[in-house]
């Protein structure tokens, strides 16, 4: 007997099974402005479900293997260039038990070093800092220039074999893209440009280098880093986790694509969920987007003859005009409204167009049951004005509420819904009768794509 399908009944298209709702490309046909080719791109993953052993999310052996196979070998976003604007500014980038010092060593040069003294191994720095002129180890005082050359050894006469050539701080590869600094501990890794492939072309219209970091919130979560990031890689969960959005969000009719080392989802806003029995009115859609409460007046009213999607895009466009001037007219409705969320393997999630989000997820030390989730807001600033300073990291503990970070606005409460699930996922994974999880052929494209790459990097195939 066939299972009963709740809500969206689906349909067979030439590309395989898809939502019964309006498909994203059909929605783009209704845009009030020309739609850029990047949104017209379609590159679906091959159909099929993906099963993943539950222990990948909690086993310490898996975590240790990730350190060896991924964190020591993959390109990973360490910070923003604007986090270290001046010579001598540095950040400490920690991943599992590895630690790196990323420093601006000259106006146009960023270097990264293993964060450990070559004498007896003490970490050189535990915290980010500004304007360093040298890195002197707090234990016995060995000292390096900020470009990694050995500057001073206390009682050098006692170390006849320690010389400048062999005792430079060991360096790791550095690359930049979109205003982000990436590092790679593997000296034989392919260049960042090659690893990113077409990604820069996708972001041509949405130059993240010309955004400033308006907010940066980091929170410790009680779950594996993959459990956390996978909760932000699909819109399939919206129907159950964010029901308040359903009148104004295209969840099961989102579009998903894969491209080499990255993937993309596009979730349209200002259009109803295909799960709804009755199509909501245009004002209902707008009210859902603005989180209107019952018995309160609407924040804005859809003018007669206009759709919610077009009207909300117009409001966004006019809001953006105050910042970017009449360039605001060169972007289409979809660029103002839709959630366009990329994932670059293994853990970097920049969003396209004007949604300001970038996420990063990483293990919290060597505990496979904990991770660090970060959300940055990257925003444009008014032309002709100096770049505003980058926001420092606002840390939240595992029991803190996202609403304690008001700089996230309404997103804080949306995150509360997402992170309400994930510690319970971490527990459930350990008590499953059949210890594996299963990912949807299309709606969980990005996660399936991640696991294809993950298996390859982890040499699990």
């Amino acid at each position, binding site marked *: 007997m066939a299972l009963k399908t709740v809500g969206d009944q689906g349909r067979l298209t030439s590309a395989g099974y898809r939502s019964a709702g309006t498909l994203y490309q059909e929605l783009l046909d209704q845009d009030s402005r020309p739609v850029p080719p990047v949104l017209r791109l379609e590159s679906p993953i091959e159909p099929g479900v993906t099963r993943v052993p539950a222990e990948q999310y909690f086993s310490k052996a898996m975590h240790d293997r990730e350190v060896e196979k991924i964190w020591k070998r993959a390109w990973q976003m360490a910070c923003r260039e604007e986090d270290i604007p001046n010579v001598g500014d540095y950040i400490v980038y920690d991943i599992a038990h590895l630690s790196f010092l990323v420093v601006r060593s000259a106006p146009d040069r960023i270097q990264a070093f293993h964060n450990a003294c070559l004498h007896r191994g003490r970490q050189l720095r535990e915290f980010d800092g500004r304007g360093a002129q040298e890195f002197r180890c707090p234990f016995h005082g060995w000292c390096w220039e900020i470009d990694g050359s050995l500057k001073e050894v206390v009682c050098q006469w006692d170390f006849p074999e320690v010389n400048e050539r062999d005792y430079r701080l060991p360096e790791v590869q550095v690359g930049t893209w979109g205003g982000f600094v990436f590092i790679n501990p593997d000296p034989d890794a392919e260049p960042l440009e090659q690893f990113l492939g077409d990604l820069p072309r996708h972001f041509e219209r949405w130059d993240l280098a010309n955004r400033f970091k308006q907010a940066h919130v980091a929170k410790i979560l009680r779950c594996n880093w993959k459990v956390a990031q996978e909760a932000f890689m699909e819109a399939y969960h919206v129907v159950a986790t964010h029901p308040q959005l359903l009148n104004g969000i295209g969840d099961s009719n989102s579009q998903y694509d894969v491209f080499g080392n990255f993937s993309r989802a596009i979730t349209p806003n200002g259009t109803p969920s295909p799960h709804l029995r009755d199509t909501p009115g245009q004002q209902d859609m707008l009210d859902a987007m603005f989180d209107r409460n019952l018995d309160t007046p609407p*924040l804005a009213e859809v003018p007669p003859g206009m759709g919610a999607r077009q009207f909300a895009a117009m409001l966004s466009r006019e809001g953006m005009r105050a910042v970017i001037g009449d360039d605001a007219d060169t972007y289409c409705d979809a660029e103002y409204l839709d959630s366009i969320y990329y994932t670059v393997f293994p853990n970097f999630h920049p969003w396209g167009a004007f949604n300001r989000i970038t996420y990063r997820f990483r293990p919290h030390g060597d505990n496979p049951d904990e991770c660090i989730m970060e959300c940055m807001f990257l925003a444009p600033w008014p032309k002709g004005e100096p770049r505003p300073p980058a926001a420092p990291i606002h840390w939240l503990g595992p029991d803190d509420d996202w609403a304690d970070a008001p700089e996230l606005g309404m997103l804080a409460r949306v995150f509360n819904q997402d992170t309400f699930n994930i510690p319970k996922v971490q527990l459930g994974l350990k008590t499953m009768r059949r210890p594996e999880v299963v990912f949807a052929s299309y709606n969980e494209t990005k996660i399936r794509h991640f696991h294809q790459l993950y298996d390859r990097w982890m040499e699990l195939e």
Partner: protein
Amino acid sequence: MADPHAEPAPLTRPPRKKRHPLSGAIYEELPGNRVRVIKGEAYGIFDGFTTRHLEGPLTYADPHMIIWVGGKAVEGMGHRAERARGLEIVHD
């Protein structure tokens, strides 16, 4: 120590109140971090943070709707001008 039987402080803003788009149940914020859910003839009152059932014949309701209607408010939110400008559309 605070008196556990004292009336909770009233809300200083209009309560959050939503109709569930799938079930049609009404979720309404009450003082003291609680949420009342009315579904058909039945009602239940739930803790707005943990979603635990507190009273009433309805013992289970959508936990994500409960924490959306309950839960901590974001300071400075509801700034209408800012949100109506479209900069605070609630995305997933």
